[in-house]
C-alpha cells in the first residue's frame, strides 16, 4: 500500500463509518458492530504504519497534493503512529462495551459521533500543520460536546456547560498563539516552524507564545491549576462516553504538548520546561489528593486522570531521551488502564445500583473474574511491579535522578503510594465486602461484549507489562526522534 493511502486511512475510515451510520438510520442494529469493525480496521492500519516507521523512518503525505510549505502535511513518526494504534484499540473496546450499554434513543447519535471523535484524535496525532491541529481540536471538542450532553439530564448539562466554557477559552488562547506565531514566522507548517523559530532571534516573544500554548494545551490536558473542569464534567455522562474521554481526550493534549515543546518551543528550555516541571509536580500531588478524598467511583477515577497527567508532563519537562521515553510509555499505559477502570466501574455500578463506594459491595462474590480483572489496571495505575505503570514510573524516576531533580522524583513516588491507597479503597469498600444492600435483587450476568472489552484491555495492559523491553526499544527511537527532529523536518520539507 502506498504511504498516501496508509496515512489518509486513519482519518477516512472513521469518517466513512460515521457517514454510513447517518445514512442507514433504518438499520440501527448494524451501527454498533460497524463501529467495532471500523476500529479493528483502524488498528490494522495502525499496525501497518508502525511496521513502516518503527525504525525511525518518517512518512509524509500532502493533502490535496500541494507540497510544503503551502500544503497541509500528514506526518507519521513512531510517536504519532503509536498513538493512532492505541487510540484504535481503546476506541474498539469502548465501542464493544457500548454495544449493550447505550439506550436505544441515544444510540444513533452516539454511534455517529464516536467515530468522528476518533477521526479528530487521529487527525491531531498525524497533522504536521499547527492550524490544522487547531481544527482537529475543534472537531474533537464539537463531537465531545455532543457525546457529553447526550441524554440531556440536568447534571450532564451542568457538566457540559463547564466543560464547554473552559475549553472554548483555551481554544481561543490556542488560536491567539497560532496567530502570533504566524505573525512572527510567516508559516504554520510545524517542520518549517522548527527551522525558523531558532533563527528568529526573539526568544522573549517566542516565550510569550509558548506560555499561550502551555495554558491552552494545559487546560485541555487538565494540569494544575487548570483542571477543575475535569472532575466537574467527566463523571456526568454514561460510562461508555466517560471511558473514551478519560482514555483519549486529555492525552491528545499531552501529545500536542509533547510535539510542540520538542519541535518548536525549545529556545529557552530553562524557562519553559522549568515551568512545566513545577506544573507536573503540582498536578500529580493535587490530583491524587483530590482522588483520595473522593467516595464516588467516577469522581475518584477522574481525579486520578489529573494526577497521572502530571507524570507525562514530568517526562516532557525533563527533556532527556529517557524522560521522553518514560512520558510516552506512561501515556500508553495510562490510556489502556484508565479506560479499563472506567469500564469496570460502569459494570460495578450497574450491578450495585450506585457509583457511591459506600453503597457498593459484593462485587467479588458476584463477579470473581471481573474483580480479578479490576486488579490488573488498578495495580498497573498504582505502579506495582511488574505491571506497566511500574515501568513507566521507573523510567521517569531514573530520568529524574539523572537530571538531579530529586524533588519531583520524591513527589512522583509519594503520589504512587497514594494512588495505591485509593485503588485499595475501591477494592476494600466496593469489591471485597458483602453487598451493602442485601435486599437488592441480583442483576443479570454481565453481557459478553462488555466482558470481552474489559478482558482485551486488561490483556493489553499485561502485554505492555510483559513486552516492556521491546516496546521501549521502539518508543526509545520515538523519543530520540522528538529530541533530534532532523528526520521529521527533512521528511516534511524535502518530500
Amino acid at each position, binding site marked *: 500500500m*502506498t504511504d*498516501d*493511502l496508509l496515512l*489518509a486511512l486513519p*482519518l*477516512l475510515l472513521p*469518517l*466513512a463509518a*460515521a*457517514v454510513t451510520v*447517518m*445514512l442507514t*438510520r433504518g438499520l440501527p442494529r448494524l451501527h454498533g458492530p460497524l463501529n467495532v469493525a471500523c476500529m479493528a480496521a483502524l488498528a490494522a492500519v495502525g499496525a501497518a504504519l508502525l511496521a513502516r516507521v518503527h525504525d525511525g523512518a518518517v512518512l509524509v*503525505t*500532502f*493533502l*490535496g*497534493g500541494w507540497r510544503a510549505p503551502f500544503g497541509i502535511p500528514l506526518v507519521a513518526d513512531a510517536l504519532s503512529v503509536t498513538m493512532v494504534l492505541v487510540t484504535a484499540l481503546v476506541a474498539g473496546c469502548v465501542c464493544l462495551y457500548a454495544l449493550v450499554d447505550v439506550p436505544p434513543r441515544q444510540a444513533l447519535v452516539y454511534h455517529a459521533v464516536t467515530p468522528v471523535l476518533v477521526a479528530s484524535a487521529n487527525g491531531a496525532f498525524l497533522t504536521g500543520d499547527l492550524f490544522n491541529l487547531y481544527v482537529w481540536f475543534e472537531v474533537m471538542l464539537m463531537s465531545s460536546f455532543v457525546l457529553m450532553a447526550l441524554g440531556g439530564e440536568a447534571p450532564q448539562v451542568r457538566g457540559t456547560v463547564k466543560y464547554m466554557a473552559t475549553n472554548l477559552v483555551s481554544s481561543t488562547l490556542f488560536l491567539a498563539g497560532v496567530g502570533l506565531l504566524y505573525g512572527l514566522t510567516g508559516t504554520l507548517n510545524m517542520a518549517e516552524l522548527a527551522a525558523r523559530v531558532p533563527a528568529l532571534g526573539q526568544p522573549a516573544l517566542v516565550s510569550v507564545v509558548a506560555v499561550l500554548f502551555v495554558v491552552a494545551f494545559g487546560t485541555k490536558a487538565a494540569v494544575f491549576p487548570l483542571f477543575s473542569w475535569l472532575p466537574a464534567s467527566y463523571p456526568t455522562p454514561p460510562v461508555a462516553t466517560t471511558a473514551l474521554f478519560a482514555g483519549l481526550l486529555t492525552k491528545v493534549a499531552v501529545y500536542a504538548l509533547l510535539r510542540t515543546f520538542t519541535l518548536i518551543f525549545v529556545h529557552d528550555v530553562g524557562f519553559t520546561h522549568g515551568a512545566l516541571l513545577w506544573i507536573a509536580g503540582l498536578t500529580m500531588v493535587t490530583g491524587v489528593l483530590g482522588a483520595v478524598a473522593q467516595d464516588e467511583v467516577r469522581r475518584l477515577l477522574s481525579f486520578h486522570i489529573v494526577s497521572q497527567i502530571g507524570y507525562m508532563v514530568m517526562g516532557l519537562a525533563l527533556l532527556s531521551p529517557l524522560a521522553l521515553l518514560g512520558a510516552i510509555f506512561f501515556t500508553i499505559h495510562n490510556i489502556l488502564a484508565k479506560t479499563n477502570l472506567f469500564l469496570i466501574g460502569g459494570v460495578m455500578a450497574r450491578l450495585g445500583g450506585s457509583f457511591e463506594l459506600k453503597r457498593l459491595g459484593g462485587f467479588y462474590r458476584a463477579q470473581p473474574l471481573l474483580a480479578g480483572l479490576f486488579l490488573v489496571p488498578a495495580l498497573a495505575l498504582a505502579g506495582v511491579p511488574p505491571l506497566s505503570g511500574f515501568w513507566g514510573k521507573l523510567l521517569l524516576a531514573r530520568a529524574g535522578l539523572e537530571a538531579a531533580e530529586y524533588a519531583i522524583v520524591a513527589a512522583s513516588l509519594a503520589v504512587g503510594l497514594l494512588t495505591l491507597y485509593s485503588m485499595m479503597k475501591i477494592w476494600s469498600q466496593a469489591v471485597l465486602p458483602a453487598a451493602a444492600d442485601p435486599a437488592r435483587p441480583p442483576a443479570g450476568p454481565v453481557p459478553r461484549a462488555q466482558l470481552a472489552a474489559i478482558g482485551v484491555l486488561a490483556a493489553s495492559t499485561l502485554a505492555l507489562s510483559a513486552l516492556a523491553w521491546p516496546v521501549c526499544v521502539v518508543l526509545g527511537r520515538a523519543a530520540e526522534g522528538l529530541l533530534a527532529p532532523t528526520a521529521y523536518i527533512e521528511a516534511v520539507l524535502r518530500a
Partner: protein
Amino acid sequence: MTPPVSIVLHTTTRFVVPIMLLFSLFLLLRGHNAPGGGFGGALVAVAAYALYAIGSGWRQAHVALRRSPETIGAAGLAIMLVSAALALLAGRPAFAALRQDARVPGLADLDLATPALFDVGVYLAVFGSMITVVLALIHRARVMTE
C-alpha cells in the same frame, strides 16, 4: 393546508425562490475557481428555503424537501469522502485534484474535476445542517406563539 401568513409574501416567494435557487446553483458551479462555492451557494439555497417555509408554512416546506435534512447532510459528507477517495484510487494523495475533460456530443465540453465534486458535498452538508437549524427555529417559534 394552513392558510398562508400573508398573501403578498406567499405570492412573492413563488417568483423569488426559483431565482434564488438558480443563483445558488450558479454560485456552486463557478466556485472551484472563482468567488462562490458550495458553502456560499448552500447558504443562498437555505435563505430561499427559509423564505418558502415562512411564506407557505413549515408543513408544506417539510413536504417540499422530500428527504430529511439529516440525510441530505450525511449524503453531502459521503460525497466529500468519495472525492477524497477518488484521488487515492488514482494513486495521488487524498483530496488531490483530478481533472477529466468530457465531451457531450452536440451539447457542451465539460471540464470535470474532483474539487467541484467536493464542493457539491459541501453544498449538501451545509444545506442539510442549516435546514435542520431553520426548521427547529421555525418550529420553536410556532410553539411559542401558540
